[in-house]
């Protein structure tokens, strides 16, 4: 089967997401679709998968122009979309998952389990995998779940399979298993679109690549002969580095040092942090930086390794301990971790410091209010009344309220996890100003971000993680989009071999 997408346009409001994209794929090809977050990869594939309509352009399958108004129509035409979050029901057996919504039934509406199991075995046989269709999906590891999704696609007679970042939650041997699967399918003439950020994986498994940037196609070609560096440069483009906010500062004593921290999602991470320093941690989605610093903050469960607080060994196993030491954490995913939706602005912006502003457990609301207003003014929080619900504020202002509760606590180390997620440009700059102001006051700041630009503009130093390990550390001018992208996708450190791990 050959697929062609011709001159696709798509915009959301005034925002042009796809501009004149043409994309093609033949059976037996594995094509990598590359680009930074927001480059338009998912939008393009959602159009192909029937999730979104295109504004203009056409899709041609084997010479026939087709229209996919729903995912089901796309699937009927032989295109299967395997989403990043797998669509499997853990509490059902493999075969039940494979036939969900399209069960084989006997007369009278009873399910024909033997027939479904037999068909599953047939598909697994073709794929060369040894899986028992009656096993519960719950008991499978992430790679086999991925394989079940692929098998389901084949069962639906898909000849083109779109895989959206299939490897983010997989371990190395699991990734290898999925890749073997992909190669088998490729030999059988299935076309695969492989969306990924991990360039080393692209070189390992793909035959062609296509790079999108800001909704435009910037490069494509055969993978043979291409290097990780070239792909990274295509993805980032020649963007001029927007003005750096980095400043020369007198760094103080070391406040926090981590030695060989390990848990499921990060291994053997060591770093040292000094007062007045802004240290960045970056990498791709699922690189383990969030889990790492949740562990440091005492909310991530048990870990191996040792933390040192101002030179003294400490174990932090609860957020109260972290708070008592002077560690603060502004979490990512504001809605789940940052705000308390049923409480008002004042309470959201002060919960951390209630015990300090209370006597015998009775909160002195006057003092709380005064302290909050002081931060609110500094952060330029736009609100009507502090008694309004937190939900009445914009995303940026909500984030500032979350920040305010930590600023009042006067931490010595403040960890920002994705601090500008879902925040508009103006608020973003306000948050950057606050971070730099903190550093000037001698607070040690850690910024976790997957936006290379954010790290480059703010941080004095950046640690790049890859699969939970320190892949490299960049200082000052060494931090460039290309360099960060290269390390984050698994490239090695250049020359300077010294490594903080």
């Amino acid at each position, binding site marked *: 089967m050959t697929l062609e997408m011709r001159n696709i346009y798509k915009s959301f409001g005034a925002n042009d997401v796809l501009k004149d994209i043409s994309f093609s794929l033949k059976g037996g090809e594995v094509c990598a679709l590359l680009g930074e977050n927001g480059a338009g990869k998912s939008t393009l594939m959602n159009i192909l998968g029937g999730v979104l309509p295109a504004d203009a352009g056409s899709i041609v399958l084997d010479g026939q122009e087709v229209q996919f108004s729903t995912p089901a129509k796309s699937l009927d035409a032989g295109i299967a979309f395997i989403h990043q979050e797998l669509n499997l029901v853990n509490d059902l057996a493999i075969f039940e998952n494979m036939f969900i919504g399209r069960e084989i039934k006997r007369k009278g509406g009873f399910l024909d389990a033997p027939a479904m199991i037999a068909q599953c075995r047939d598909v697994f046989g073709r794929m060369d995998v040894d899986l028992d269709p009656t096993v519960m999906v719950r008991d499978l590891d992430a790679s086999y779940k991925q394989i079940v999704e692929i098998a389901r696609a084949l069962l639906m007679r898909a000849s083109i399979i779109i895989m959206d970042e299939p490897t983010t939650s997989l371990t190395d041997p699991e990734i290898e298993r999925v890749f073997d699967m992909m190669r088998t399918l490729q030999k059988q003439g299935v076309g695969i679109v492989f969306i990924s950020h991990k360039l080393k994986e692209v070189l390992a498994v793909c035959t062609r690549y296509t790079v999108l940037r800001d909704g435009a196609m910037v490069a494509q070609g055969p993978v043979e002969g291409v290097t990780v560096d070239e792909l990274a440069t295509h993805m980032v483009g020649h963007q001029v580095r927007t003005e750096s906010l980095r400043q020369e500062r007198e760094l103080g004593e070391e406040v926090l040092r981590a030695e060989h921290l390990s848990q499921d999602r990060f291994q053997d991470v060591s770093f040292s942090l000094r007062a007045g320093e802004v240290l960045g941690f970056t990498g791709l989605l699922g690189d383990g930086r969030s889990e790492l610093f949740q562990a440091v903050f005492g909310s991530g469960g048990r870990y191996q390794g040792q933390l040192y607080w101002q030179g003294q060994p400490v174990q932090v196993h609860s*957020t109260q301990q972290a708070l008592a030491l002077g560690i603060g954490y502004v979490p990512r995913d504001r809605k789940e971790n940052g705000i308390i939706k049923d409480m008002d602005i004042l309470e959201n912006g002060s919960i951390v410091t209630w*015990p300090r502003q209370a006597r015998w457990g009775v909160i002195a609301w006057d003092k709380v209010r005064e302290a909050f207003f002081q931060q609110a003014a500094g952060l330029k929080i736009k609100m009507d009344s502090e008694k309004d619900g937190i939900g009445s504020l914009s995303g940026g202002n909500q984030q500032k309220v979350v920040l305010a509760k930590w600023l009042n606590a006067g931490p010595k180390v403040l960890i920002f996890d994705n601090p500008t997620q879902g925040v508009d440009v103006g608020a973003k700059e306000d948050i950057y100003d606050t971070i730099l102001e903190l550093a000037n006051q001698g607070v040690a700041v850690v910024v976790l971000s997957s936006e290379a630009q954010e790290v480059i503009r703010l941080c004095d130093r950046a640690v790049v993680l890859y699969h939970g390990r320190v892949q490299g550390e960049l200082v000052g001018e060494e931090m460039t989009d290309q360099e960060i992208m290269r390390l984050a996708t698994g490239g090695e450190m250049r020359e300077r071999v010294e490594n903080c791990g």
Partner: protein
Amino acid sequence: MGNAEKNKTGLLARFQLAWRTNPLFSTGVALIVMVVVQTLALTMNSSFASFGDWFQNWLFNWISLLRNNAAIGIIALGMTFVIISGGIDLSVGSVYVAVGAFTMMLLDTGANGWLKAMGLTGVPAILIALVLAMLFGGLLGEGNGLLISYGRMPPFIATLGAMQILRSVTQYCMKMQSPTLPETYKGIARLGIGGQQLMPILYWAVLAGAMYFISRQTTFGRYVFAIGSNERTTRLSGVNVRKVKRRVYALTGFLVAIAAIIQTSRIGSMDYASAGSGFEMDAIAAVIVGGTSMSGGRGSIVGTVFGTLIVAVMNNLLNLIGVDPYLSAAFKGAIIIGAVLLQRKDKA
């Protein structure tokens, strides 16, 4: 409220706004309507010689209504915190009977009285018994709290287990016992003015005031709301979530113990098989009718007092107009469903 701009919009518009957005307001209105109907029913039910006669009747009816509901009202205060924190406590009825039995054994004037055996009688014995009973209730609640916070058990299951265990063990232990209480102890509830027992009402009022204060002005009270609304964020704000949860259940156990003390002193005895059974559902009903969200994070002590009164006034009303007692549970159910329908507010 009350500023010039809001006055301009007119009484009706303000009423509509409050009705649409404030759950406490509609609960309050519902309560007032119930009270008006109840008063009418009382007035038409029998003929009164004078206004004084009517007033005395009305007052005594209310005093007995409040007194009869003081125990459940106090338990509902604790249940409010539990539900706001995102949990549930099914064991209150069994804690009630366990504490009741414990208190009676402590104070038994017969040969088996625990305190009497240690040579303690009179007022000191009663004071010791009161302290121990409250501690015991708190401890039983703490047990629930430990299972839920450290044992990571769903509150429904942990307290369902405790409910079965406590009642069964109490019945077993009390199989051969029939304690009698000293007369002085009965004064705890029976002290009153003009032959009317007012003490249970007073305890309820004081505890409701205290719980209201705790819910609004203390770190503990606000943490309870925060945990119910978003436990993760609360933990990430450096709050010891487990400790707060433990305390919520311990506090409920403590309040249940007070209810048990009041009831044993009022009645002077206890039927270990049936006393307190159904209390968990009555308390939950009062909390829900009072506008507290089953999913946690939202609710109020004032609402729960209103909720307790709504259910109580309705029972009283059914009594006054002579509805078959078999139907009273149906009305209670209807009130619960109706109240929750009323409380579906626009998103503010």
